[in-house]
């Protein structure tokens, strides 16, 4: 119904993979025969980002395996919905701004600086960062602090695997991430809407949790710029704003990082930002959410504690007052 949009001409209708085709393709990829074929397309470290550098209309296909155990059973939202409805203030505050303004964003070359309380620090190329990590697909729930939600098939690898390579010291209690600061490329950074660059962070045990993902793609393709290319964080039991995009810096710290939303509106956004239907945003309820993508009626559904990942992550917060540490 709404999917044959001409409103955002940047995405050709052919880029929208119908879910059943997507499933069958995925089955092929995981089936072995297709795997070899897909590998010839190129892995990271090769030219997998070529497509992303040229333009977002045809992101490069990725080689990955499906991690069903870490995926939810729900139907993912369409590629169109996921790539045209984004909160990414670096490219504008309207949901449609990033899809329009991020098209020319350069993700190559890309470096990530690792610092702080770790044995291995320095500046690494994106290829170096990604090389040892086999990619997997995980279908996660995405709950925005604005009380809407989607289902997204991310492609990435566990953040914990990456962190172990840097050998954080015993002083490392938190990990802090920063987005690229480049006002020339990111028009939002020329405004004072938020302090730039965007900063996010996790407690070390949250960062090492197997659900926490470094994502490099979605729907089996390289990450579109508007979704946080080339490297972004996904923490599915937290509100979406924790999922920092276009990461250029990873820093291990002893103290909790001053994260962007929590420092610019401390009464409304906390450091933890765990999805919690019992703790309302001061201006709106978090008890329910509107699940996007279905019919116009009946989108509203109850929000689950920890966005439905309570069984896996609630133990991280044992004994903590989640009203205080929201």
């Amino acid at each position: 119904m709404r999917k044959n949009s001409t409103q955002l001409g940047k995405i050709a209708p052919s880029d929208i993979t119908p879910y059943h085709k997507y499933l069958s393709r995925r089955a092929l990829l995981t089936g072995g025969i297709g795997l070899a074929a897909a590998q010839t397309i190129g892995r990271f470290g090769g030219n997998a980002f070529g497509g992303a550098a040229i333009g977002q209309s045809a992101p490069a296909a990725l080689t990955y395996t499906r991690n069903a155990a870490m995926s939810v059973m729900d139907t993912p939202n369409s590629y169109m919905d996921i790539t045209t409805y984004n909160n990414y203030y670096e490219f504008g505050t309207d949901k449609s701004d990033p899809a329009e303004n991020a098209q020319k964003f350069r993700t190559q070359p890309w470096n990530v600086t690792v610092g702080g309380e770790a044995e291995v620090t320095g500046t690494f190329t994106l290829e170096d960062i990604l090389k040892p990590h086999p990619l997997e697909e995980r279908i996660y729930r995405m709950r925005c602090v604005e009380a809407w939600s989607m289902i997204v098939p991310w492609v990435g690898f566990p953040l914990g695997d990456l962190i172990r390579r840097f050998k954080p010291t015993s002083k490392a209690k938190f990990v802090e991430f920063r987005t690229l600061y480049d006002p020339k490329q990111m028009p939002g950074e020329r405004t004072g809407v938020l302090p730039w660059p965007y900063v996010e962070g996790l407690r070390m045990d949250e960062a090492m949790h197997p659900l926490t993902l470094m994502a490099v793609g979605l729907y089996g393709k390289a990450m579109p710029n508007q979704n946080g290319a080339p490297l972004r964080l996904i923490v599915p039991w937290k509100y979406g704003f924790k999922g920092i995009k276009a990461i250029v810096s990873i820093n291990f710290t002893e103290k909790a990082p001053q994260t962007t939303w929590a420092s610019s509106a401390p009464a409304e956004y906390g450091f933890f930002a765990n999805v919690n239907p019992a703790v309302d945003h001061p201006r709106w309820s978090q008890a329910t959410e509107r699940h996007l993508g279905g019919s116009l009626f009946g989108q509203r559904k109850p929000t689950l504690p920890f966005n439905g990942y309570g069984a896996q992550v609630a133990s991280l917060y044992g004994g903590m007052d989640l009203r205080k540490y929201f």
Partner: protein
Amino acid sequence: MPPSQGRDGGARTGGARLRAIRWALKPLVFIACLVPAFRLTAGAFGFAGISLGADPVMVMLHTCGKWTLNFLMITLCMTPLRDFTRSTLWLRFRRMFGLFAFFYVLLHFAVYLLLDQAGKLGALWQDVIKRPYITIGMSALLMLIPLAATSTAKAQRRLGLRWVRLHRLIYVIAGLGVCHYWWQVKKDIREPLLYAGGLTLLLGYRLWKQRRSLLPGINVARVAGTDAS
């Protein structure tokens, strides 16, 4: 002062001018005012290649809310425009614009209750009592009801001076509307700021005019008999 004495009086007779306004200009403006609603309807049903994007409910909610504010502002522009252009033409559209503000706020409310809150009156009531910006928005909507109900020429005649006083509520309603918008924006307050600035100008002008008219000798001409705006 007879209406034809203004700058728009020109060569045409009053009757021909009135007919042109009534049968040509007014219907055109009326249809133009409906364009946002048509666009939303087309988008909601996927007509004419129009799409409302991934979150059509939010687009409908925000578009109707913004057009309510726009029409409140447009309504409040009519009197200053009359003063500046010395033409009463503007006042002939004031009621229509005011009623369109009411039309869009009803749509805004319908989208909120039926689509956003899935028709749950309990959730609506919780919002009204717990969330100040919704309390404010709801009171503005309720205040618009008596204004819309007394918008006919008949009611205007019957109520006389009381009509003038009653319709001054539009100042309060517009103020509440801007607060309602400002309060729910997450961080980017540039647009609400724009509305607040516009409203300050529109209300400030009236205050200035009133102050001036209190001074003897430089009374601003009251072109229309009853003037609530």
